[in-house]
């Protein structure tokens, strides 16, 4: 039953996650639908790339051939079809993006959980450590790490994953601290529930949606990070990714040849995926924490209606 108070004051308090919340609120929003569609499209392309784009590096036309009916986005510096290259590149870029995001989420989530749940010295130590990691500039660190530890795919994933977990840790810690104080958690503790039950059954389910939302945002960061690491020449030379395509374009002097189709499309793909992830992640976060939205602060513009007809005597 929705009372008038509930209808008006729905934006006041952070929402405890209950079943059906995601489905009813998040999936309905247009930005989620658009975002998920874009991501979905690229995922499908990436998965089907062996079928859609076999032998992507094969030369199929003249070098830096402009877009034509045969090659919709022209060819690159080696004469290979840009469209096939983009589809092939989606695979690595998305793979690195998702895997690195998962690594980050795992590290950040675990640290945040431990910090928030145990508090006290554990919290202080972990948060101090997090502070130190935050301070280190991420780009130079990634460059140095990539240069030192080799350029394999796994290493790139790990490097990105180990840099980006700090925001997640703080976010999860705050949420865990807040849920820990909920009456139903205190009740379970008073009943004699052990730590594993408290965390597993009561706290984690509340924290998981936020973690997922945050992970989606992390994917955006990770894909972007992969792109510029590879662009700087630190990626695996045998793999095609969008960053590699941009790198190659520079190496092959695409700009001098006015071959915009070799540089712009990969960048646009990265931008689209990053944008899509951001849209989905943000709409999830907003649903879980309505205070983030500011709609309720808009000036009061209630409407006036004519009086309804009098009731029957």
């Amino acid at each position: 039953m929705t009372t008038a108070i509930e209808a008006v004051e729905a934006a006041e308090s952070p929402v405890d996650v209950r079943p059906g919340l995601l489905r009813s609120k998040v999936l309905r929003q247009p930005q989620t639908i658009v975002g998920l569609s874009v991501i979905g499209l690229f995922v499908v392309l990436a998965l089907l790339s062996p079928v859609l784009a076999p032998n992507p590096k094969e030369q199929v036309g003249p070098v830096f051939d402009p877009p034509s009916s045969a090659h919709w986005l022209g060819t690159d510096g080696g004469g290979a079809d840009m469209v096939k290259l983009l589809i092939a590149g989606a695979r690595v870029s998305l793979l690195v993006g998702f895997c690195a995001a998962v690594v980050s989420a795992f590290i950040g989530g675990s640290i945040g959980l431990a910090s928030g749940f145990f508090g006290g010295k554990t919290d202080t130590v972990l948060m101090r450590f997090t502070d130190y990691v935050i301070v280190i500039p991420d780009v130079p660190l990634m460059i140095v790490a990539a240069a030192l530890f080799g350029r394999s795919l796994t290493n790139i994933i790990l490097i990105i994953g180990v840099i980006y977990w700090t925001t997640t840790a703080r976010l999860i810690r705050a949420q865990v601290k807040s849920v820990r104080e909920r009456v139903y958690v205190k009740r379970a503790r008073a009943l004699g529930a052990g730590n594993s039950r408290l965390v597993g059954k009561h706290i984690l389910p509340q924290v998981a949606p936020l973690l997922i939302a945050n992970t989606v945002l992390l994917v955006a960061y990770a894909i972007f990070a992969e792109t510029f690491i590879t662009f700087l020449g630190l990626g695996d030379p045998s793999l095609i990714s969008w960053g590699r395509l941009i790198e190659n374009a520079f190496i092959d002097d695409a700009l001098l040849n006015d071959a915009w189709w070799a540089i712009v499309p990969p960048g646009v793909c990265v931008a689209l995926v990053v944008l899509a992830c951001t849209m989905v992640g943000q709409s999830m976060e907003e649903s879980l924490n309505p205070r983030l939205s500011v709609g309720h602060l808009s000036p009061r513009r209630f409407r006036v209606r004519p009086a309804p007809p009098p009731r029957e005597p």
Partner: protein
Amino acid sequence: MSLLAVTDLHVWFDLPNGRQLHAVRGIDFTVDESERFGLVGESGCGKTTAILALMGLLPPNASVAGEVLLNGENVLSRGEESAAPHRWREIAMVFQGAMNAFNPVRTIGNQIVEPMELHEVAEGKEAMRRARELLEVVGIPGDRVTHYPHEFSGGMRQRAAIAMALACKPDVLLADEPTTALDVMVQAQILELLVSLSNDFGLAVVLVTHDLPVIAQVCERAAVMYAGVVAELGTVDRLFHDPRHPYTRLLFAATPDLYGTDDVASIPGAPPRLDRELTGCPFTPRCDRAFSPCPTITPRLMEVERGHVAACHLNDSAIRKAS
């Protein structure tokens, strides 16, 4: 002419699922100078929404109908445009939880002065002087204008919130659950303050609460609301000693009294959903005296004696004869 006259007030809220919540379904009441009027009901009855409507403090998904005459002018005629000029200057409100709504980084004095400057009633030194006076009126030493909210206790913050509401010398003060979160001794102090404000300054007070005994002790007249409508309206004496609506009677019976000896009653069931059409009397499923016309015919507010109205078929001899 009454200071405040509400006629056939309706409020709807647009819900995300496309439906509308008809929160206030046509209520009428009047309040005169120096009068303390109570609006009592349980959660979801629409009382808070109703007084928010009096000040035009409704969100964008709300729509209203009806008339709210304040000093003869209809506050709702053109929405925000017609409501804004009266806000704080003629009608002001102490919100639920107002004592917790102070800005922690500004002094109490500054926060009382703020509405004065916003509504162009006073400014600068003059405004601060008036703020001191207001604090004295509500029982706080005037030189505490320079103190911050955290230096006040809960009861004193509530008084400060009342002072803030009185900043522009309104004619009507709306108080939404002003004592709900307070201890009973502090509650007594605040209620004593509200009574003296209405007696000494001619302030009309509309007290909204779910706490019947508070209304019984502080107000002269009251309206009992249920499911967005007025179930009964009259002097508090008649409401207790001669209730003409089963809900009023049952609500009093469900309120434990210190020295009472009767069993404390409870009312089974729950109020109806307000996002759909209601037929008949909304209290029917929970009423202990419902009879044949109740589920289908909506009772109208009938006068049962001078100044006492109730919306119940039991008072309508014509309908009783017919069934």
